[in-house]
């Protein structure tokens, strides 16, 4: 009987287990390549720019940003939401695909999780830096105090943010780390360097690969996965509530939580795609990151892009259908047309139109085009946040208060700084950690290799 092959070959080159270990750990033992130093230096320069911008913000004031009395949030919040969105990829990847028993995740999930952790760290910096008095940031934590006691406002979505993001960061970091334990043990056992043996030995928690160990490992992975899955949904739902619970036209909509979660996964997958294509090229992992991996991601992106398009259309429809004059104004005259048209149509083009090219198999197969489209998705999702944050605030209820917003070098500098942190974090990950889950790939080797 003819059996249709649903998924393509996931590990090519007819690998043996030993080969897999060698392939993936080579980079750890090899001499650090020159490009790594160059890339790290560029990232460090970006971080230095960021440090300057942060120093200016903290020492002089938020006034160094372009925000004003009417548009009080700007790049700070846009980038916060953008990074959080990117930070959705890893956990979503590992957990949803783990739960859905998608085997192809194995060669991608490790990198995606690393990306998550770094992106969430980047994201977490923004709400802090964005505060007028960062030195009093601890006020936002509900700790027992002598002021009454005075509690935080449990009704405020910003407080929910604090809880959700910190939980999410911890959960994803733990999940990521636990997944790496068997691989650390592998490195410990293979390495010839004494230093590495000690370090990786420490982090491997004495893993010996016993059957009991594996049993527990699998159980913990599943448990953590089950715990983190709702978090993925919760975090971005809560971020969306920063907007949805407000009364600003264009923010005050019930569609926001699902729309934001899907948007976050969209941008996360986009970033995963960008990153994995680079990894494939640089580390020559063609055998592990095959056409069929990218094909699978592209298909998912096509689907999510359609959801995004539906969300955009629904918003416009609701603005018209509700008959609310402020909603109508915000959507029709300040987004579709008006001063911010460029941002709006960039968002539509990048998020809803361009990914539709993935319907064509030939495009999905062309890694270069896939790479370019993935970049478009990243840009499009940035503009989505820009459209949401800026357009609603700039022209709201009282026309007397309408104002425009443009960022200053300080705001851009902070963003550059976080880009630096992100790339440097990823570079460190490439250099010092096994960038694919060796043990998991071995687990799927028999069924899906060629």
């Amino acid at each position, binding site marked *: 009987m003819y059996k249709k092959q649903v998924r393509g070959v996931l590990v090519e080159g007819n690998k043996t287990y030993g080969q897999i270990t060698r392939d993936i750990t080579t980079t750890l033992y090899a001499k650090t390549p020159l490009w790594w130093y160059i890339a790290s230096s560029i990232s460090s320069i970006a971080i230095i720019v960021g440090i300057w911008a942060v120093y200016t913000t903290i020492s*002089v*004031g*938020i*006034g160094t940003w*372009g*925000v*004003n*009395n*009417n548009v*009080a*949030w700007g790049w700070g919040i846009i980038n916060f939401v953008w990074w959080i969105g990117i930070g959705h990829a890893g956990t979503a990847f590992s957990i949803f695909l783990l739960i859905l028993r998608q085997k192809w995740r194995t060669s991608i999930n490790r990198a995606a999780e690393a990306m998550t952790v770094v992106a969430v760290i980047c994201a977490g910096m923004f*709400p802090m830096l*964005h*505060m*007028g*008095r*960062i030195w*009093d*940031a601890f*006020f*936002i934590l509900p700790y027992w105090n002598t002021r009454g006691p*005075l*509690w*935080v*406002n449990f*009704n*405020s*979505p*910003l*407080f929910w943010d*604090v809880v959700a993001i910190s939980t999410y960061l911890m959960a994803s970091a733990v999940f990521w780390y636990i997944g790496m334990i068997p691989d650390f043990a592998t490195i410990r056992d293979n390495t010839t360097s004494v230093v590495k043996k000690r370090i990786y030995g420490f982090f491997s928690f004495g893993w010996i690969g016993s059957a009991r160990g594996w049993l527990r490992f699998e159980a913990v992975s599943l448990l953590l996965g089950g715990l983190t899955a709702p978090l993925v949904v919760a975090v971005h739902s809560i971020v969306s509530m*920063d907007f949805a*619970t*407000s*009364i*600003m036209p264009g923010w005050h909509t019930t569609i926001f939580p699902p729309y934001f979660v899907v948007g976050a996964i969209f941008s996360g997958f986009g970033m995963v795609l960008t990153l994995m294509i680079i990894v494939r090229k640089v580390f020559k992992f063609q055998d592990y990151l095959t056409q069929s991996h990218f094909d699978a991601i592209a298909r998912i992106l096509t689907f999510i892009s359609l959801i995004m398009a539906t969300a955009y259309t629904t918003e416009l429809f609701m603005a018209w259908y509700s008959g609310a*004059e402020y909603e109508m*104004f915000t959507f029709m005259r300040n987004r579709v047309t008006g001063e911010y048209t460029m941002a709006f149509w960039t968002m539509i083009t990048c998020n809803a139109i361009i990914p539709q090219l993935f319907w064509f198999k030939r495009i999905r197969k062309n890694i270069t085009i896939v790479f370019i489209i993935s970049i478009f998705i990243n840009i499009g999702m940035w503009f989505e946040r820009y459209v949401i944050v800026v357009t609603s*605030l700039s*022209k*709201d*209820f*009282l*026309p*007397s*208060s*309408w*104002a425009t917003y443009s960022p200053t070098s300080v705001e851009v500098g902070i963003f550059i700084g976080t880009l630096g942190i992100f790339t440097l974090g990823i570079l460190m990950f490439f250099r010092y950690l096994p960038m694919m889950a060796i043990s998991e790939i071995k687990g799927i080797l028999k069924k899906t290799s060629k």
Partner: protein
Amino acid sequence: MKKYWQSIEAYNSLKNNHEIAEDKVSEFSVEGMSEEEKKGETSRRDFLKMLGFTVGGAIVAASCETPVRKAIPYLNQPQEITPGVANYYASTFFDGNDYCSILVKTREGRPIKIEGNELSPISKGGTSARVQASILNLYDNNRLKGPTINRESIDWNTLDTQITEKLQLLAIQNKEIVLLTSTIISPSTKKMINDFLNTYPTAQWITHDAISYNAIRKAHETQFNQAVIPSYDFSKAALVVGFNADFLGTWLSPVEFAKQYSAARKLLNGEKTMLRHIQYETTLTITGGSADERTPIKSSQEKTILLNLFSTLSNSLKGTVYSLSDSSVNVTALANELLENKGQSIVVSGSNDIETQLIVNAINNILGNYGSTLDLAHPSQLKQGNDEAMISLMERMKNGSVGGIIHYNTNPAYNYPEAKKYIDGLDKIELSISFAESMDETAMLCQYVAPDNNYLESWNDAEPKIGFYSMTQPTIKNIFDTRQAQDSLLKWMGATQNYQRFIEKYWEENLFNKQSTHLIFKSFWNQSVHDGIFVSEEKLSANYSFNEAALKATEVSTKKGLELFLYEKAGIGSGNFANNPWLQELPDPISMASWDNYLCISPSLSKQLGLSTEDVVSINNKFEMPVLVQPGLQKDTVAVALGYGRTSAGKVGNQLGTNFYPFIQIKNDLRKTFGSNVNIEKLEGKTYPLALTQTHNTMEGRSLVRETTLDKFTKDPASGNEQHALDAAKDATLYTKPEFTGFRWGMAINLSACIGCGNCVMSCQAENNVAVIGKKEVRNRRIMHWIRIDRYYSEESDNPSVVHQPVMCQHCDNAPCENVCPVAATPHSGEGLNQMIYNRCIGTRYCMNNCPYRVRRFNWFEFANNNDYDYNMNNDVGKLVLNPDVVVRSRGVVEKCSLCVQRIQEKKLLAKKENRQVMDGEIKMACQASCPTDAITFGNMLDPKSEISKVNKNPRNYHLLEHVHTLPSTSYITKIRNKKS
């Protein structure tokens, strides 16, 4: 200590414990301890360690000490001062232009706030933005700290000796001494100047106003034989027709007129009629904006229109008819309306053209307005400037026949149109003296500067209208080594008494007999100083005859090109307060621009020349200026504000904008603010930033300011407010409405009364220590004002209809800002106030985003003690103006209108102390207290008898954005215009 036991068990356990204690086993391991340590002794090492730690810790702790700010208690506490309790002193504001009777609030001996004096029959408790801001002039660090000779300081005795010698010498040489002053309305000063003129027979007294009103006096002299400005009573009028007279903003006595005008236009107590106001003007002013009908006219056509109006009136009343070319606007309807309101109308013109004023007088005369709305028996004493005398002085200065000149409260080197000539003439004068408070343009050129006290440090009196007196008393000892100008003059004429005694004597001799209440002078004097007001009981009647033949009108020669129209801004005025940062930052009520003057051009001209706001043009190919497109400006005219381009005002006011006094034209011995023509040329690609606080000018069809006409209002009082009923019908909520007991504070703003003058903005700034942020940050849309006045245009752009709407925190019961704050820094009080806890605020600015009224302000920078914001909060003198009841906010926190919670608290405590209820109207908000139009009502909404409860029941009452369901405590009352349909 002996231990007692209660039972055998206890005894046993006590004994056992004792045994254990005796069995000395160390609690912790002693392994690795040195012998000393085992014994519990301190080794040399430990001692050094401990010493190091202690000394190090002490050093760290000591170096962390915060700087000590000393508060020095009174050695002998003055009887009238209770720390923490304010004292109020009645006084008078007069800066040479505007008069206002005031109360000065002092705290611990320093004046911090100005309120209106309600006893004054003229200003009736109102103030203007300039009066409110004048308190800051007192603490201007730029003021002269002592007398100077050739810009080097000397002491007063040397100065007195030298000047007296020189004056006497000049008198002997028979050389002219000129006393050049601003308008003086003080009867005592006038008397003293007369004494001075007697002492120095060669002395001449010349009055110079920056902006001249001389034509009105001259016209009255020609027609009535009295060189006066009549006193206008808008409250007696049913129809007011203004021609380029911004009588609500800057013309003559705006506070007085605004009080009368708004009282006749509020319609809150069931009135069926209201004052009708028709305005013909060149550029849009707040007066034109408030008018029921407004027509833009070319200022050069004003005379023709007025003459046509006069002829039409005269024709109907069978009088003489004059004819010039036809008027550019049809005046028949206007004439009919004026005829309907004979004897209860006012026609005023702001023109300084004698013929125009002659026609205006003829019109008022033919309508029988003299004796009813225009009073010649109690003429205004303001604006006594004599243009002719100034012109002849210039001649004499040029000839070198003037030997000495004394400047008092006048700055001709800046504001005289031929300032260059004046400066040249000043060079030829042997003795030049200035009484300027700061080194202004004229004082810079004078040999001697004998700095005058600020008016808040001075004794003085005022007679703004004949028979109405007002008192000025010092509210603080002079801060710097200054001396009142009158005292200086008294010294120089050899008098021994001081000016205070002089006034007292003057009042005793001249005013005591004009009253019958007090039998002894001392009691009359004390009462007058206490009240600040004295109204003469003397009955004056006007004795006049009108000389019809004096009316003459010549054809206006029409020139090609753009006409230049010069106007005053409500804040900056003639420019004498240019160094006042509050006034500089006050947005112009019409253009919404601050910190600059600019060339206003009409929308049609902007289209024609391809110019938009912030483009730069070159004027007469001489200098450059930014452009502002001003709807409502006559299309062949460009307009520029006077009072800018100061070169020696101080660090705040220097080099802001361009000085347009040189464009004032001298024609027929009168200085005119219009008539010169300019060429403008666009400079491609060049722009200049303007600090606008509002950039969108229309309401976008939203129901924000609700408006109706008198006709519709009389049929249905709720007309224009239909949306209120619709929204109320849809009012639904899942939540319980908040309930209040005791107090629930509320405010209502009558948009029919509000003229947008900006007094409330300044009053709030003074009361609540609102920071000045400078032009750059205003342009960044970060102004800190807690109350702003939104201005919207509607209808066509060539002649828009204007509405003003003061907006401050609305203190919503369902406040969107409150539930989004993560740290609960902005909770709701039990009295309905939306509070802001600065100490708790971490500055997420979420509340600002979620406020639909956009009234929350963020401290983007540290605005106090910061050299980047070098205004009054950056020097010790300037900081004296701060209200000690209100904290100065630091960087990174949000602030907003608190509904003057300190004022509420003060009166609540007072009521508690006196064991009574808080009375309605006892608590007044800063914005409300001195509002010249009484547009604001405040009170307890739970008290059904309170004024606010009554106003809230009015069918005209509505909330801003009520459909957003924020449930504000502040409401608005619809605007009514008396339009003829």
